[in-house]
């Protein structure tokens, strides 16, 4: 067989054309779109995604663009693309939305592939007005038991509601029927929840250390003054936060509002806890080689330590778990919360 220049050129061209396709089946493409389950580019999901995308892109020498398209469009986008061109980062809302029966949420464990966890936001909290008669979660549960109506401002159907569901679960365990005295006030954004407290439309609000800590420093006669009654994060998560904490609240102060010092019982001697975990979600059919590639790259990124500083600066707790471990961890959380939600009679799929 004579190898003419034309044959060689044709062979080289074919190789050049096919190479990216072959490579695409084994590793991340050169340009990746990272969609997030939030429309906000100022929120914690975007911040986590931006920090992780920067580090991962640098490690792999690729481009990663973060797009804040919101949960509905993000699930659609990642569901359409098994090549690894579209990845998703979201948090516990992605399975809690399904457990609460929110439209647009599917069972992520069945419909998608779970990727690695990247960090925890330990800030999820509940607050009362500073001059509230309720000084603690024990007071709130006792009030419900005595028949007092306690109004709790939440955003229904997910992260904001799960702590409220746990309150109801604990109230029910202490005195069946008293959970009916814990009444949800459905609001939207954090400012709506704060406003509900200012307007005396709620007795307790869901909030966060990051958003609400400064309000706790105001004098009691200020209409805006608040007090923490509960921080839902696990104590072992909070212990990884900077010792100085946030604002005037040290890490030790935070621990006083978390389990075991502040207890919302889950039964069997356990307290309810909730860490807001951020993790990757992939198309169900994405090549396992790409999953492994991301796991390995992130393991090296976290071992390097630079990303930990960026996450800690933004008051997140670095929490890398490779895909398999992440899946098991999130599945366990899912099962625990599914039990709570179903036992208090809320929708559960």
């Amino acid at each position: 067989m004579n190898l003419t220049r034309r044959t060689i050129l044709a062979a080289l061209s074919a190789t050049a054309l096919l190479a990216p396709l072959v490579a695409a089946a084994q590793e991340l493409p050169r340009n990746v779109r990272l969609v997030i389950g939030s429309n906000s580019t100022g929120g914690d999901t975007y911040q986590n995604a931006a920090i992780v995308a920067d580090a991962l892109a640098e490690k792999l020498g690729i481009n990663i663009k973060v797009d804040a398209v919101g949960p509905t469009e993000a699930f659609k986008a990642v569901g359409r693309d098994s090549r690894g061109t579209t990845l998703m980062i979201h948090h516990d809302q992605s399975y809690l939305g399904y457990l609460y029966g929110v439209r647009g949420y599917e069972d992520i464990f069945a419909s998608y592939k779970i990727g690695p966890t990247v960090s925890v936001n330990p800030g999820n909290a509940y607050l009362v007005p500073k001059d509230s008669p309720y000084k603690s979660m024990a007071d709130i549960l006792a009030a419900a038991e005595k028949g007092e109506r306690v109004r709790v401002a939440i955003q229904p159907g997910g992260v904001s509601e799960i702590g409220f569901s746990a309150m109801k679960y604990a109230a029910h365990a202490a005195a069946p029927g008293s959970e009916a005295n814990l009444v949800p006030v459905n609001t939207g954004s954090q400012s709506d929840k704060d406003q509900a407290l200012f307007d005396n439309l709620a007795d307790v609000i869901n909030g966060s250390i990051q958003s609400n800590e400064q309000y706790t420093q105001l004098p009691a006669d200020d209409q805006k003054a608040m007090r923490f009654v509960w921080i839902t994060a696990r104590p072992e998560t909070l212990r990884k936060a900077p010792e100085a904490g946030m604002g005037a609240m040290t890490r030790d102060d935070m621990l006083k509002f978390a389990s075991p010092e502040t207890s919302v019982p889950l039964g069997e001697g356990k307290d309810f806890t909730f860490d807001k975990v951020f993790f990757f979600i992939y198309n169900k059919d994405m090549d396992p080689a790409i999953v492994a590639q991301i796991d390995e790259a992130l393991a090296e990124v976290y071992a390097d330590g630079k990303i930990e500083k960026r996450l800690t600066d933004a008051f997140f707790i670095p929490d890398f778990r490779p895909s398999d471990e992440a899946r098991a961890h999130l599945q366990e959380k899912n099962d625990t919360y599914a039990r709570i939600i179903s036992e208090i009679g809320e929708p559960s799929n």
Partner: protein
Amino acid sequence: MEVLHVITPLFVSLIVGGTFVGIVFGAIPGMTATMAVAVCLPLTYSLGLENGLALLLGLYVGGISGGLVPAILLGIPGTPSSITTCFDGYPMCQRGDGEKALRIGIISSLVGGLISLAVLYFFAPTLADFAIQFSYVEKFLIILFALTVMAALSSDMLIGIFSGFLGLLVSLIGTYGIESGGNGEIRLIPPGLEYWLESGFALLPVLIGLFGLAAILEEAEIGVPESQSARNVRLGAGTGFSLSVFRGQIGNLIRSSGIGTFVGILPGVGGSAASILSYTATKALSSHPETFGKGEPAGVIASESGNNGLTGGALVPLMSLGIPGDSTTALLIGAFTLQGIQVGPLFIGQNPVTWDAIIVAMLIANLAMFAMMYFAIRYIARVVSVPKPILFPIILMMCVIGAYTINYGIMFDVWSLLIFGLFGWLAQKLRLEIAPFIIGFILGPSAEIYFVKSLESFGDLTIFFTKSWIAVVLWILIAASVAGSVLLARKTRRAREGR
């Protein structure tokens, strides 16, 4: 003055550069200040807090201001907050006063920006305390007041009201989102279209479809005579600009800047409401309301001072409560948290240098915006001299790109652009009014949320009248606006009958 250490050549360059990029984003239909800030947000981590904020605030001021350019020259609002600038700016341009309208708009923008900045600096914590007196009820009444402009924006009041309510109805298509406090259920979607319509129609594609694509379709239908193709509108054919145009408008400038600032202070009411409210108030108080919508300079003044008044106002709740006043300032929170800085009621006291740097950055951004736009007007205004066969394909391409990128690459937004472009073209034939339609569309979701939440929170309709003295004042304004519209409609009808 520790802040002087912050004002470095890099700090100033970032503001000026950010303002320029913001103006470009604002001037391209479909691209917004929010988008400009979102694109540059990740850069702030490496720039540090003050320099990062300098860039973002430049983008913010530039982005809000740039929207007036296409609104006046092309009749397409560059951003939702410049919607009312179209109403009078574009007719001015059509009669040859484009350059004059631009100068009026730019000066009004500067005044609005500076007044709101002064309010921000001197009264931020006090105004934030006042803002929290506004519950769902008062916010609903503010939106209702803005909606009253629908009746006054068209030649036939009833058609205007019908068009406005149609816009309101269309805005409610989709999911009653839980992120707004809704129940997460869908409504008003024809069977089989749930997949496409569950997120509803996005504002920007609808806006540029109705104002951009529809106008191009109309022009295409008429055709472009050879003699007119080279010159779309004669530049400088109008009356020319002098500062005397502001004579008798000082009250308008101050009132509209104040309204814009105040709307910015109220979290959640939305930036578009600022210019709509300013426009509504100015028209209601005018001795010649019939000239509005036909090229009235006071309309451009009201709209532009109102929407730039928003810039300082929206920073009030951000800096005093940690709550963003609009979608763009929501992104600024990201810049703070990326640096580990808390924003909340103690921010100003605990971070005096950063606070002063923000004020200085806003001041420089406003002055840079004015300098860049005012002295570039002659060049900017030449866009109307571009022959339509060249200009329209470029506009169409920008509209499609803007629609596709506004929600980070959702193809349905391009379909929305086309659907509403066709709707806008057909609406003219059906005598429907586009301006009230779009105002209904913009304000509909807020009206719904605040109305439903008011009832959920307080029980019955009487609360809208009894909640507070603020509610009573708002009802008086609403009644005055409606009465003004009715009187204007009668006057117009009599004038027609007289002819």
